[in-house]
């Protein structure tokens, strides 16, 4: 490669990041992010932590580094858990800057071939639906069910999945096919749309059932738009902003078509996409921004909704005699900042003994597709979480995110800890059911 070409590369690389120059300069390199980064805790390597990643991006702007395969690899090693941003004395939003860096990588070098393939499938709603339904139908052939609820292990080696890893089985029939478009309550006072997200639709349909029961029980009609699709977060955090925008547009289009008071999600990451991320995506497009804002303003995570907006019925709760602890998903704790509400629900349940675990809001190590690409590392991070869960002496760990639940279930099984992982709303549903008897 001759000099001119290298210079051209540097110039192009710089242009891709020029808009975050000021934001990067605000990092004073104090290294406080080292105290909270789950990945750094395991690797103790500067390139793992926000300070290192932001320095590398600054190095591109100064022409000392280029957008290389090495940089791609380093930026990929981030769980987007936002712990660094929350702990930053200078208020640097490192998580967003790292995603911004990934966008530059995608523009300069393209998406990772595996991600490209997955996202191609994901972006075709119909094809994606068929693929995941098929996975559900043929699931028992390829995955062996384990005695633990909603747990399975691969019967033969599968690409991208660690042989020992416990995943949840795909549902034989997706949630959205199990229910009519509108699930009516007996005496409806409100009408909401349910954004199911992928894990609830295709895997954890038990959470979807609980959400629908609980909302109906609180005199709320539930509309389940059949044309809804993935919120786009996995694509957005991988750096493919344009593709993510097309997901966002689709969701906005679909939900605009329904006359509902609120949109309810039962997953921290999905809720964050609708409430926060879409606004970031369309900040330079006033028309789309306004539409995204309309959706954002009426979207709530289920526990937030039941505590802050339409208070849930407490008069007919039945006993749930279990000791329960709570794992706060990153995007609940530091994304949409909803941690009090799930606790308020759990503590309202008669007979339920709520105990806090240590570091309840520390990342479980899942990071969505991060745990697929980096299973051994994500297992180490998760093992710390499992240790804290075990130390709490709880019988059940409640959380508010499908991928957290899956990774917790895997960790509990791998560590031979016989504690069940469930969604908060399932315990509330259980309590209402107990109240009916």
């Amino acid at each position, binding site marked *: 490669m001759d000099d001119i070409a290298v210079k051209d590369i540097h110039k192009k690389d710089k242009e891709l990041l020029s808009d975050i120059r000021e934001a990067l300069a605000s990092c004073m*390199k104090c290294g*406080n992010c080292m*105290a909270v980064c789950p990945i750094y805790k395991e690797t*103790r390597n500067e*390139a793992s932590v926000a300070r290192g990643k932001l320095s*590398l991006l600054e190095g591109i702007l100064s022409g000392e*580094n280029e957008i290389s395969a*090495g940089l791609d690899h380093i930026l990929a090693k981030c769980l987007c858990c936002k712990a660094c941003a929350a702990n930053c004395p200078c208020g640097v939003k490192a998580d967003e800057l790292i995603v911004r860096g990934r966008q530059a990588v995608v523009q300069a070098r393209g998406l990772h071939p595996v991600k490209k393939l997955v996202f191609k499938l994901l972006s075709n709603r119909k094809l994606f639906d068929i693929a995941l339904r098929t996975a559900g139908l043929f699931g028992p052939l390829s995955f062996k069910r384990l005695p633990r609820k909603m747990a399975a292990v691969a019967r033969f080696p599968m690409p991208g999945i660690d042989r020992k890893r416990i995943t949840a089985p795909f549902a034989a029939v997706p949630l959205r096919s199990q229910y009519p478009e509108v699930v009516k309550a007996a005496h409806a006072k409100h009408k909401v749309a349910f954004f199911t997200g992928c894990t609830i639709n295709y895997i954890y349909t038990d959470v979807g059932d609980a959400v629908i029961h609980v909302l109906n029980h609180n005199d709320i009609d539930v509309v389940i738009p059949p044309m809804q699709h993935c919120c786009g977060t996995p694509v957005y955090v991988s750096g493919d902003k344009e593709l993510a925008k097309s997901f966002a547009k689709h969701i906005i289009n679909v939900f605009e078509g329904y006359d509902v008071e609120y949109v309810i999600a039962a997953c921290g990451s999905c809720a964050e996409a609708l409430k926060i991320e879409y606004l970031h995506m369309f900040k330079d497009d006033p028309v789309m921004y306004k539409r995204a804002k309309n959706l954002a303003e009426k979207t709530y995570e289920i526990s937030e909704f039941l505590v802050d907006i339409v208070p849930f019925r407490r008069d007919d709760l039945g006993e749930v005699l279990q000791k329960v602890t709570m794992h706060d998903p990153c995007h609940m704790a530091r994304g949409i900042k909803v941690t009090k509400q799930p606790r308020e629900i759990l503590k309202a349940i008669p007979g339920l003994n709520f105990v806090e675990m240590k570091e309840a809001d520390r990342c479980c190590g899942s990071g969505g597709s991060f745990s697929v690409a980096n299973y051994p590392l994500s297992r180490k991070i998760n093992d710390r979480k499992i240790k804290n869960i075990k130390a709490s002496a709880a019988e059940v760990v409640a959380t508010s995110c499908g991928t957290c639940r899956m990774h917790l279930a895997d960790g509990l099984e791998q560590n031979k800890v016989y504690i069940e992982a469930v969604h908060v709303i399932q315990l509330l549903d259980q309590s209402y059911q107990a109240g009916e008897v």
Partner: protein
Amino acid sequence: MQTLYIKEFQEIVGEENVLTGQEDLFCYSYDATPGYSHLPEAVVIPENVNQVSAILKLANEYEIPVYPRGSGTNLSAGCVPLKGGIVLLMNRFNHVIDVDLENLVVITEPGVIVADLNNIAAEHGLIYPPDPGTVATATLGGTIAENAGGLRGLKYGVSKHYVMGLEVVLANGDILHTGGRNVKDVSGYDLTKLFTGSEGTLGVITQATLKLVPAPESKKSIMAIFKNLDHAGEAVAGIIAAKIIPATLEIMDNATIRTVEDYAHVGLPLDAEAVLLIEVDGIPVVVEKEAEAVLQVLKTNHADGIQVAQNDAERDKLWAARRAALPALAKLRPTTYVEDATVPRSKVPAFLRDVNRIAKEFNVTIGTFGHAGDGNMHPTIVCDIRDLEEMKSVKKAMNEIFLSAIKLGGTLSGEHGIGLGKLPWMEQQHGGKVMDAMKSIKRALDPKLILNPGKLVGEC
């Protein structure tokens, strides 16, 4: 660096523990000090003393500069590999070897994080008192090498008061054991103290014997607001004169108060010239008695407002203001220089006035907070390192601040170390003969000048 050397380093620590990729090298080119960075040629990550010895032997033979590093959080460019060579990353030395409750000492490796040691100590009702602002991230090796202090310096001292013994590898690869578990030990030169605070220029610390002390049973925090800086200064002197040694005795100047209030809205009056935050700790009855005496002194010295924390929640509220000082200042501008010039405590008001005058004269933004009880001030200059004109003024202001501290009988550094940042003023503080003596020590222990070369004593 020649491939040959890299191969030899790989043979010592294994291939995966020698980093040479551009991105990895870039990540070890800086520490927490603004304005200094340089790429190393390799990052070598040993896990035991024999590997460190072999690495140093090799580096000494080929005269390769060696830059020991823990978490890289220091504020004096102590870790920056300014002459290339290798960064010797010590964070795989992360084991606490022995907690000796009969002698109240702990034997630990240097890569252990300070807060992690304190968590272990707390299980036994003990504390390791040095608590720099970076306790949650800094390694013990780094804090010992920099002789770090913290908020409790007035009553508990700094790192050197807690290091009882060290295992150190010299530049030629020799492994030394200094000091030990003895409370009293006057056998020979005190090499333990020599290596403590040597900033990686004399040897590499591979193990430390540290003193632990009983955790105080109770604490009481008091905040006092002063509209007049001199009254605050007299109150500080008054507390000490009343024979009370608080664990912490912190001060914030007007610039810091305004910034903190703007950022955290903790209810500080904007016209206050100083806020004092005092914490007494120890046995409950003594704490109550001392707190009462402190209140008397504050009243006698015309405090314009006094708050006493009655419980943990109130204590947290008082401390929120002090904790917000650095973040609030740092958020004002992209670049933050936290200095640690220190003066005899009687000179604190005079020093603060000087800093204010300097800030006005050179038109730079400086907020000062710090440990009034031990005279260790943190004039914090916020600026933009990319603005070369502004940086000229910043450098001039910095120069004046250090000269002022020296003139008042103070010192360049109370707890951050000299490194490169304060090197230009070393001769002014110590004089030529002291510098010669220091350089002789450096040359005696590291004749080929491979260890953190150019730092602390400069070129020899």
